[in-house]
């Protein structure tokens, strides 16, 4: 092949570039007729040779649409280059590549490739050892492994984003952030009240956007991972759900947050033991659980 290229000389090299340029200009692919129209002065024997070469090297891909053959340009950076692999490996590699950074489950690979389980396992293992692909554990199901290309960064739906470390949800981290966010909102409100002015001013001054909170949290340096503004937004929403803050929308479509007070102090019923008793359903006049000898009540009374 190399020798032939050399024999054909500069003419051939020129042809290669022309065809690549042509294919690049039409992302939907070029047909044989397109090529003929574009370079009428070059003999079909010469450009077919060059097309064959490009197809083999993976720069062009062959598609069939309504009976006509189409060549599509493919970026050489992502091009399939499974050296020293057999056809099965190539097929599997291609399936995994298509799945992108979301990854693909082994069962889906089997359906798509029509390989049997043992063969597929062998292929995957070999690809893994060659570091073409990697297996990533998904947070959605702890036992579910998904495969993706080795150099890809897994999607946040697979890793769970900033809140997951090794498939474990870091609830403590979230709790700390939740508290810090609330502290920030509270501080802002207290500062606004201290500044004085009318109540309307106080209220408007105590509003903050997620970006402000993001800045505060980043400066605190409590997070090992880089948090995005969206991450903070979802933390702030949990503060809202805790009834410690309210959320409104400003004219730019941004969310504004503000610390608020509740209407009521805790209702009387939960200030007794019975109101929060986990076995209140089983409590009665007769039987082991009764108000006369209730341990919880005794403890509470002796407080």
């Amino acid at each position, binding site marked *: 092949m190399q020798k032939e290229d050399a024999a054909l000389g500069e003419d051939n090299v020129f042809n290669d570039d022309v065809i690549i340029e042509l294919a690049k200009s039409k992302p939907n692919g070029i047909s044989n007729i397109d090529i003929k129209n574009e370079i009428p002065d070059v003999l079909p024997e010469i450009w077919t040779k060059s097309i064959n070469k490009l197809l083999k090297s993976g720069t062009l891909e062959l598609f069939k649409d309504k009976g006509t053959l189409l060549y599509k340009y493919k970026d050489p950076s992502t091009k399939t280059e499974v050296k020293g692999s057999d056809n099965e490996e190539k097929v599997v590699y291609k399936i995994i590549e298509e799945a992108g950074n979301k990854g693909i489950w082994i069962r889906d690979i089997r359906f798509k490739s029509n390989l049997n389980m043992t063969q597929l396992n062998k292929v995957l293992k070999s690809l893994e050892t060659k570091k073409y692909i990697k297996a990533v554990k998904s947070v959605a199901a702890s036992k579910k492994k998904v495969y993706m290309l080795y150099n890809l960064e897994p999607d946040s739906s697979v890793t769970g984003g900033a809140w997951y470390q090794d498939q474990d*949800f870091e609830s403590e981290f979230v709790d700390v952030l939740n508290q810090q966010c609330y502290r920030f909102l509270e501080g802002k409100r207290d500062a606004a009240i201290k500044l004085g002015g009318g109540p309307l001013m106080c209220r408007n001054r105590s509003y903050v956007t997620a970006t402000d909170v993001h800045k505060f949290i980043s400066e605190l340096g409590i997070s090992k991972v880089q948090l995005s503004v969206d991450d903070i937004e979802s933390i702030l929403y949990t503060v809202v*759900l805790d009834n410690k803050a309210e959320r409104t929308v400003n004219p730019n479509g941004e969310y504004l947050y503000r610390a*608020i*007070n509740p*209407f009521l102090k805790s209702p009387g*019923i939960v200030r*007794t033991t*019975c109101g*929060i008793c986990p076995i209140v359903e089983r409590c009665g006049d007769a039987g082991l659980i009764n108000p006369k000898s209730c341990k919880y009540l005794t403890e509470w009374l002796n407080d």
Partner: protein
Amino acid sequence: MSLQHRNVINLILLERFGKVIADVGDIIFQNPSSLYNIVKSADIRISKVKEALSVLIKYNLVTFKLNVDSSAAIYMLNLKNVLLMLRFPKFINLIKTKFDETYEVLVEEILLKGCVTASELIIKVAKRLQEQKTVNILLQELKDNFNSLVTAKYVTRLSTQVTKAEELYLLPNLDLKQILTVLNGENETLSDAGIYWTINSDRFHQDLRDQLIVNSVSNKFDDNMGELIRLLLQQMYVRTDPWVSSSNPIPILEVKDIVKKRNTHPQLATFFEQYVNILEQDATGIIRKVGEASGGSFQVEIKHIFTQLTWEAVEEIVNEKFDSKASRIFRLVKLRHYIEPEQIQNLVMIPAKEVKRILYMLLEENFLVVNELKRSATSLGPSKSFTLFHIRLSQVVRTMLELCYKTLYNIMTRRCHEKYLNKRLIDKKHRVDTITHGMRVQGISGDSVLDIEEMITPPENEILERIGKMMKKLSLTELEIDETLFLLEMYLKYE
């Protein structure tokens, strides 16, 4: 109408009136029945039953109506009024803070008697307060105070079938001279005999309701806002029936004038418009603007306020009963109305497993309900159904009411039990107290009194002190539970 409800009512009657009345009450709680049936099922002598019923009727706890074939009277227990007895301390306190001590004594006496004629009431109260003032002034004052209680509708004429609506708050014709002669120990028929007066609980509830609203608003915003809503409510009564769900429009200028005139809250007076604005714009929707005329007129959305307050109370109960994560999930379900577990997991930032545990725990305790939507049978493939979580507030409120009754019952049972356990000691203390008191009245003092007092040993004293503390705590708790009951009742009333 449930087992818990019945238990509480039975216990209240037992504590206040004794066993016979409690038994009779229990029978007519189960089903309203005639005198004959009560005697049959209670196995109490007919004279006793009659007595019990008349006591209950006097306290407005039993009502009666004619049987279908007009042959006998059917007696029914007035459940609301029985539970109301737990709220009496609050009523008395309300009157005390709003007016002064003589009013308090007047109301207290009415509550103690159930119903009473005006003259008798004044005689009774005058006897209690005689030592402080000269009789003539006192009587005049009591008469005036009583009349103002009637005008303010705290006290109403006991209504019978023949009472007309306009007679309810008609002032009685009181002859102070007559009262004075009776007070001096002579017999005379009083001018207003046969006209009985009783408490108008609705009026008290109205005040308690307003107090609750003002306190809540003050908690959420500040005292100035509390004052604003208080004045709004006050102005509301000028044009509106007290128990409608949203008031008629109130011109805001009127309120502004009052604020300026009173000048108790300078901050509110200076920034009046801003305060109104904030209250109106707030997500809670306490007031609503209905017109621009005369500086804007606003409606107070009382029903809405109570829905909000009830939501918050229920959320807080979830928070205390389970934990803050559960209340977070509960609030999310409230905000989204219908929501799938997957969505909840993403929004509340709690591990999926934990979310599932909490969701099904809340479901088990009846705070949540599940709606399952099945795909139609025609669609092929794995049959997927949607599980949607949802909250039915009125259902939750009823569950909470039950919980309140149960808690009340438990607390009261415990109190009785503790009293029973330490009966001997308490009786001894009583005896010693009466003896020493008697001795002091006789003018004996010194060692002999001390000797008697020392009959209660230090360890006994310690126990007595502990019991006293315990009783105080239990009674206080009863009142606190009643607060929750009041809020929930208000919600159901407006619902």
